[in-house]
Each structure stands twice: as C-alpha cells, then as structure tokens.
C-alpha cells in the first residue's frame, strides 16, 4: 500500500483532496465542533478529544550546539478520527501519525510513523502526561517536565523540557477563528520550554540547549473550503517577548496573531493586524517555496525579516510540507519556527 494514500486517508478520511490542505476544509459531519466560550480544563485537555476529527501535539525547538551551531527539531503527533468514537481494539476509529525532524544548517532529517488507536501502539494520556507513537514519546509527570524522544533511520534525539512560564490560550480563551466564515479550533500553547539534551546525527552525538514551543490544537473543520494552506510563525524575540502568527491562504487571506509577553500575558489580534509577505522563493523538492518573509505586527512595532536556517527543511512525508527553524532580523531579533503547507502537490 502506498503510504501516501494511507496518510492522505488518515488526514482526509472522507474527502477529496481539493478541499483545503490535506482535506482540513471538509465538512465535519457528526464530529463535535469548537464553540466559543468553552472553558479549557487542565490537565484534562492535554489529553485527546476523540469527538473531534483532528488534533495535534506539535512541538518545535530552536537549539544551539556547543560550538554555537544553530539547530532545529520537531516532534509532532497527529490524531485523526474516522468516526467520533473512542474505544479499544482494532475497531477503534482513531488513527495516529507522528512526524519527527532535525534541521541543521546543512541538512534536514525527517521521519514518519503511522499507527492505529485502540491497541496501545500510539496514544495520549493527560495525567501523568504521556504522548507516544511506537518508540517516540513525549512524557513526564505533568506537562511542565517532559522527556522527548524520537528516532529515524539516520537521526535520533533525546531531550528534556522544563516549562518556565504559563500556558497561553490563543484567540478568545483558546477559541481560535480560522476564517471569515467562522471555521475555528481550540488552540493553546506552552511556548516557554527550556530544552537540554542530545541530537544523534550521522556525524555523531551533539549536546544541545535551546527553547521549545508546544502547540495544542483540535478541531473538526479548521479550514474554509477555499483555503489552500497556511504559513505559521512562532517567533521568540530577544528580551523574552514571543509572537504566534499565521496566514491562511484562500480567496481572501485570513490572518491571526497572539502577542505573548515574557511573563506569559497573551493578547490576540484579529484578522488583518498581522501580515506576512514572501520576499524570496527557493526551489525545494520540485516546487517554489517562500523561505524569506517580511513579517509585521504594527500594533507592537514588529517589522522583521524572517529567514530559514536551512531552506531545504522539506518534510517529504505522506502529506508533504515545509517546517524548519528561522532567524529573525529587523525591528526585533531572535529565532523561531516556520511552517508552510499547501505549496503544490497536495
């Protein structure tokens, strides 16, 4: 079986591909829908929400080696439900997909795992926190202290995470609107992880330290039908302020942003406040991908150039996309992560 077909099906169980990136623009049918005013409860909401069609635990980190070399790593667990039910055994309609990657200035390593729910091969438990697929895991006593591991054929990592700030709710108390038509998701982050650990690369083991950002999001139809993909930025500025911003590309672009102070105070910005404009395209994996951006949030005096550490940070997995560390120059300096989806080919 073509893994691509599998993964497509995983993300878009009942949909044709034309409907948004990876079918995220398809109708939600019997699945639960995010509602405004819903109050998130922790640690329960760290766990899965099987009534919703898709969900992810998405961790990215910018790292530095002992010689100052910058690196990036990604650990992602996606949940995709064929039907809004949970259970045990092979009949469970919950499917899981993991992506792991390490980016260096010269190379990009990526791996993918797929698993069925209900048999223990993959899953998430809220308390104590544990998210896993095969031998990849993100687990700890709670979400503040985690150990993160993953391995592919040519790379592996084993790092510890310590939260130094509070959880951040995006949008309206975690209700994040994704289109003018009202598509939305539940969305919160833990952007304040300090990280220390080891990258295992073909050239050897490298001790690294850095900062990590965990995104938690679940929904049943987060994109409008006309939205083809998104460009998502998580930026950490020198001085401690952080910013999350995204552009959903459609007939009319839809943007959203959250400004996070060093203390963890979040301010949500509506459509249009945040803007991101491609400055340079790089040919990657047979398509043109913008790897240098001008990013602005005038309300906070942000006008920066965001440049990919390695323009070839292409995730050649079942549903391919670009995901990699970036450096920030301009009104603010810092590092961050960029994710771009829907650039040609699915």
């Amino acid at each position, binding site marked *: *079986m073509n893994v691509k*077909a599998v993964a*497509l*099906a995983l993300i878009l169980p009942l*949909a044709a591909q034309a409907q948004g990136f990876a079918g995220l623009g398809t109708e939600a049918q019997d699945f639960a829908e995010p509602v405004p005013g819903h109050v998130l409860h922790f640690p329960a909401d760290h766990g899965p929400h099987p009534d919703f069609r898709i969900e992810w635990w998405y961790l990215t980190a910018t790292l530095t080696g002992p010689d100052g070399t910058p690196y990036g790593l990604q650990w992602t667990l996606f949940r995709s439900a064929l039907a809004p039910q949970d259970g045990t055994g092979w009949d469970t309609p919950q499917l899981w997909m993991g992506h792991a990657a390490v980016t260096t200035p010269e190379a990009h390593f990526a*791996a993918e795992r797929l698993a*069925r729910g209900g048999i*223990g091969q993959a899953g998430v438990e809220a308390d104590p926190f544990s998210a896993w697929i095969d031998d990849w895991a993100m687990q700890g006593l709670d979400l503040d202290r985690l150990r993160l591991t993953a391995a592919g054929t040519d*790379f592996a990592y084993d790092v510890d995470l310590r939260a130094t700030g509070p959880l951040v709710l995006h949008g309206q108390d975690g209700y994040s609107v994704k289109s003018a038509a009202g598509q939305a998701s539940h969305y919160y982050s833990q952007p304040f992880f300090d990280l220390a650990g080891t990258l*295992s690369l073909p050239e050897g083991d490298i001790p690294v330290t850095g900062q990590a950002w965990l995104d938690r999001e679940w929904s049943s139809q987060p994109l409008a039908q006309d939205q083809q993909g998104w460009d998502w930025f998580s930026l950490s500025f020198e001085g401690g302020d952080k910013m999350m911003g995204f552009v959903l590309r459609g007939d009319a672009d839809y943007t959203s942003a959250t400004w996070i102070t060093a203390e963890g105070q979040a301010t949500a910005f509506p459509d249009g406040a945040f803007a991101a404009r491609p400055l340079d395209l790089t040919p990657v994996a047979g398509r043109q991908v913008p790897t240098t951006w001008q990013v602005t949030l005038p309300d906070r005096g942000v006008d920066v150039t965001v440049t990919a550490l390695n323009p070839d940070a292409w995730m050649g997995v079942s549903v391919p996309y670009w995901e990699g560390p970036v450096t920030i120059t301009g009104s603010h300096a810092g590092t961050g992560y960029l994710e771009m989806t829907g650039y040609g080919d699915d």
Partner: protein
Amino acid sequence: MTGAVLSALVGHWWRSPLQLITLLAGLALATALWSGVQAINAEARASYDSAASALDEGTLPRITRADGGPIAQDSYVALRRAGWLVSPVIEGQLGEVRLVGIEPLTAPQGSGQGSGLPGLPGGADLGDFLSDPGQILARPEVLARLPRTGARHVAAEDAAPDMAVTDIGVAQRLLDRPGQIDRLILSGEQPRARPALEEVVPGLILTAAQEGADLARLTDSFHLNLTAFGLLSFAVGLFIVHGAISLAFEQRRAMVRTLRALGVPLRRLIALMALELAVLALVAGLIGVALGYLMAAALMPDVAATLRGLYGAEVSGQLALRPSWWISGLAIAMGGTAVAAGGALWSLARTPLLGAVHPRGAGMARWRGGQAAAALGLLAVAGGLALWGQGLLAGFAMLAALLIGGALALPPLLALLTGLAQGRATSAFGQWFWADTRLQLPGLSLALMALMLAMAANLGVSTMVSSFRLTFTGFLDQRLAADLYVGATDAAQAEAILAVAATHADAILPALATEGQVAGRPVQIQGIRDHATYRDNWQFLRAAPDVWDALARGEGVLVNEQLFRRAGLDLGATVPLGAGPALPVLGIYGDYGNPVGQVTLTEDRFRALFPEVQALRFGLRVAPDRIDALRDRLRDRAGLPDAAMTDQAAVKAAALSVFERTFTVTTALNVLTLAVAGFAILMSLLTLAAMRLPQLAPVWALGVTRRRLAALDLLRTVVLAALTGALALPLGLALAWALLAVVNVEAFGWRLPMHLFPLDYLRLGGLALLAAALAAAWPAWRLSRIPVAQLLGVFRHER
C-alpha cells in the same frame, strides 16, 4: 521487372498451395512450441511474483515465534514501542478461501502491490477498509467462494489469486483468533538503534528475507525444468524452420534458373526472395504465437494447479498476452528463417546461371568429417564441464554443449551404422537398401537431428519429473511417517494432547525444533524420539553402519544434504551444538525443498541442550481404523480444532494428485515436440522425393515395383528413426543427469537421485516411430502412385 519477378515467385505458391501450407505450418509449429512454453513460464512466474509481493514476503525479513505458534498482539505493540518497525499479518482459511489480515498503516511501503489495496481512489477506500464493517478485497472469483462475513466484499482485479485481503481486526474476528498474529514483517528501513529482539519479546525468531524465500527456490526448481524444456523446444524449432525454408528453396530451383536465364539480376532476385520470406515468416510467426497462446491457455490450469499443490504458490489460471514472449515468438520465426534462408540464398548466389537444378555435392563427405570433429569437441567440452565446471552457468553451458554435440554426432554415427549394415548385408538388394539409406542421410540429417533432440528432451524431462516424483513421495513417506499430526497453541493444550494420546495412540513423536548456527550458517536443530517410525522410513544418502543405534546412544547427529554440501560436513565431521560437546555426523539425509541446513539429534540430547524449548507439535502413530476415533477424542478432550490436526494420508494424496497433473503437462509437451519433429521428417522427405527420382528410376527399371520401393522408403524412415531413438536414449539420460545432478545442485543445493523408467522410454520410442511412420506415409504413398512416365523421363533428361 520487380512486379514480374514477384508475380512469378507468388505464382509458384499459387500453383503448389500444399508447399505454401507446409512452409507456413512448419514455421508456425516451431513458433507455437517455443512461445507456448515461454507463455506458461512467464505467466507462472508473473503470477506468483504478484502473490509473493502481496506482502513483500519474498523480499522482506519476518519474525515468527520459534515454536511456530501465534504471536500475541501485545508482543507486536511491545516491538513497535521498542522501535522495531514491524507490521502484523494473520492468515487462515475462511471456508475455501485463504484470508490474509494486514495492518495497512504499518505494512511496508509498496508491499500491497497485488493485494488489491493500491490505487485507492482518493483514499476514501482506506477509510472504508479501516471502518466498520470493514472490507474484504479479492478477485471476483475468490469473492464468489467466500462465505458471508458481514464485511463488504470488494472486487479487486489486481489482487493475488486465491487470496482475500482484509484488515487484521476483521481477520481476527472472522478467523475467531482475537489478539493473535501469525507473523510480523519488517520494513526495509529501521531506526538507528533498537534493543535486541530477545530483550523485547523472548521466543521470537527473525528470518532473513533470503532464507525465508523457500517458496521462490522451490518454484524456481519447477521453472528450471520448464526453461530447459523451452530451450530444447527452441532448438527443435530452429531445425524445423531450417527444414521448411530449405524445402521452399529446393522446390523452386528450376524457377530461379528460368528467371535468371530471362535476365533477372541475381541481387534483385535475392532481395525479393528475402522479402517474400520475411512476409511469410511474419505471418507464420503470428499464427504460431496464437497457437502457442492457445496451447498455453489449455495447459495453464494444470501448470497452476501443479505449482499450487507442490509448493503452495498461487498461480493464476488465467493467461495474459505478454509482450516479452509475444515478441520472442515472432523473433524466433524471423530469426530462424533468416538463418535458414541465409544458407539457401548463399548457395543460390553461388549456383552458376545454368547450373544443375539438383546439385548434390561431393563435399558432403568432407563436411561430415568436420561435423564429427565438432561433435566430438562439444561432447568433450560437456564432459569437462561436468567434471570441473562450477556454478549454474557452467551447468547450462554443459547442457548446451551436450545437446548440440549430441545432435551433431548423429549424422556421422548414422552413416557409420548404415555403413556397417551395408557391409553385413548379403544380398545385392540389401546392400542397395543400406547404400541408398546412407545416400539419403545428408538430406534427412536435419530432420533426424530434430527428432533426436525432441526425443532426448522428452526422455530427459520425463526422467527428471518422474525422478522428482519418486524422490518427493519417498521424502513424504519419510517426513510424514506418523499417522496424525497435531499442533497445540500453548503448553496447557500440549499437556491435554499428551494425556489423550497416551491412552489412545500407539506412539507419540514430539516435534522439538529450534534455530542455531553451524559453521556460521543458520540451521534448524531438531530432536527426535528413538522410534521405529524413523528407523523404518528415513533414507540416507550416506550413513555410518548402525546409524540408528549410534544415534540412540547419543554418539552423533544426522545432518541434511544442504548442510552437508554447504558446510562440507561429511560423515565423521564434528558439529558443535550449543554448550554441549561437538558430535560427529552419523548420517546424511535428503531434505527436499528445505532451503536451510538441518541437524537432527536424539530427543534426550536435544532436551539437555535446549531445556527451554517446548514441544507443541506431535506426530501420533495409530492404526488407520482408529484415526477418526483419536481425532474425535482430541477434539472433545483437548479442545483441538480440526485445523490443528493433519491426516498424513490426506496430505500424501494431495501431493500425489499434483504429480498427476504435472504429468498431464509433460505428456502434452512430449506429444507436441514429437509432432513437430515428425513434421520436420515429412518436409525433408518431400524435399528429397523429387531429387531421389534419378536414384530410384534405375532400381525400378531393374524390376522393383513402385509399391515395393514405397514400402522400402517407409521402412527406411522407420529404421532411421529407430536408430535415432536408440542414440537419443543415452543423450536423454545424460541430459536428465545434468539437470538433476548438476544444475539442480548448483541452483538449489540438493541433488535429486536419478531413477530410470524403461517402460516410459519404450513408450516414447514407440511414439517416435509412430511419428516417423506417419511422416513417411504420405511421401511413400505418392511414390507408389508416381506416373511411370516420370520414372522413364529420368533416363531421357538426365543424360
């Protein structure tokens, strides 16, 4: 002028349609034989390639439980969570259909080719595949045989034959085996570091892909037979094409002379004749390919059944027109024509403008001398390769040298034999008969060589197939010596079986087996109980005196032929096993079909060396009339399902019926090759008929009637065929020996003992004589009716 010449050339066929038909039929038959064998071969290969790749089990390593039992689903999850990229497979019979349960998300990439899963439109089917109530994918004819399952039955034309694929969850439910897995297949790419298999789940064994590909090796053995047959049919085909073309040229010599005398340039004439032949070859080739297809289609179900029964390989009984053998069929018609026509055109170009219409060269004797030397040389090469050759290629080279050498040696040998007979003949008439026979040899030699190759091929292949059958049935007797075989799923069930068997079976033979290493190679190690079952049935290739007593005393081990050949462990050589002392080899036994080396020792020694290995399978000895009672008790008291009990008589009957089908195929091919060779004789005789008149006319003038002359011609052909057959016997046996003792050993690591089947050879000889007589009948009949004026004309014209 071109038009005029063409119309003259075509006009010849128009006036003698029979000649056109024989030419086309000869070419078509040769092509048909070749492409038919190719078609069967190609189709069978393609079919089980697709079946094997259904789960890529031919190329991927796999994990099974050491004792052969099912793997717990938790073990699968434990392995995945330890970083082992494995995918579970469960398999079982659902009614008449083999149901295979897979897990599509973890199945190695590309492994679904042929399982019906690729090409899921937009992925929607995968959703259905994984969603309640699930799907079962199979070819329509397989779906028709499925019982009602509750799952949706989906037709998939590209699914592997005789197999239905579904999700593992659905399969576990339908097979009533919740939480069980039969094997885990490993994907090619594994993470950087993983704990050892034994640390994660004890009791599992990893089988490397190549070792596990025993199915491929066994079926390769059958294919090697078919390929050899294909090569032989190719040689026979070349001879017949040559014969057909020579005939076409001989018959038109007079016309060619006339055309050239009228001023047609030689070059243009040759070009036009070549064009004409190319068109004829193309037409005949197409007819031949079609005939080959029909032949293959008729034989295909038998071939499929043979492979399925012999090795469990799934071969579709349907035939697809494959470009490869289609083109190769046409190529042989065109190529054979080109080779044959090249010589004929060459001789045409060298014929003086008004030269003799029937040149019968004196150069024949010289040529024959050269041919004898070439034959001797080739046979010497074959002998040398047999003695010192290494590798499969040398084996095939030897086959080729043997065949061509044997064929080339035929005419000189026949000349020698007829010469001897002539010397012994007392009457003048007898002397004339043999001298005349000798005179015909050059013209008939090609056809006789074709007959000889056909006979040798048939002899060789039937010897091989029959030897294979004898060996295999003997092997089955050895391996299936117990009357009932039972398998337990766990130790508790094994205890229950033992409890029942202790009172109701005559003897219990536990199957104790594990994996080990000898001389750096993976081997199976098995322990057997000292029992008459083994003593009576096992046959040794080599054995020390009192091998069973010595084995029972624990003084040594037995090894299979594969281990003996690969590791050079002859009698007396010592085999180190586990922690115990190295033991000498007491006997070497044939172990056909097993790709891996095997060491057999006594139960006591085995238990001492491997105390952790539990016997879960048992052979039970019981009188035939008590088998059913024993089965009932095992079912009722030990909870053993029928599927876990195998009646050896049933297994043997199934294996034997498979061989009957193999014989159907072989016999059909035998008859075909002989028919083709007979056809070659017919055409040669037709060619000779006109040329022979000057030789026959004087004999007729001396008072021998046309009837008698015709009868003598018939007799001559039969005598020559009989001599050819007698000479084909040693060649055929040498061929069989080469296939069994050289090629098979090189290809598969075991040697098949050769058996002789004189009655089969007699029958074949009879068939060959019949073919020759039939071929000679019509020319003889024509001779008996030849107008007297024609015979008289010889005296008028030839001076």
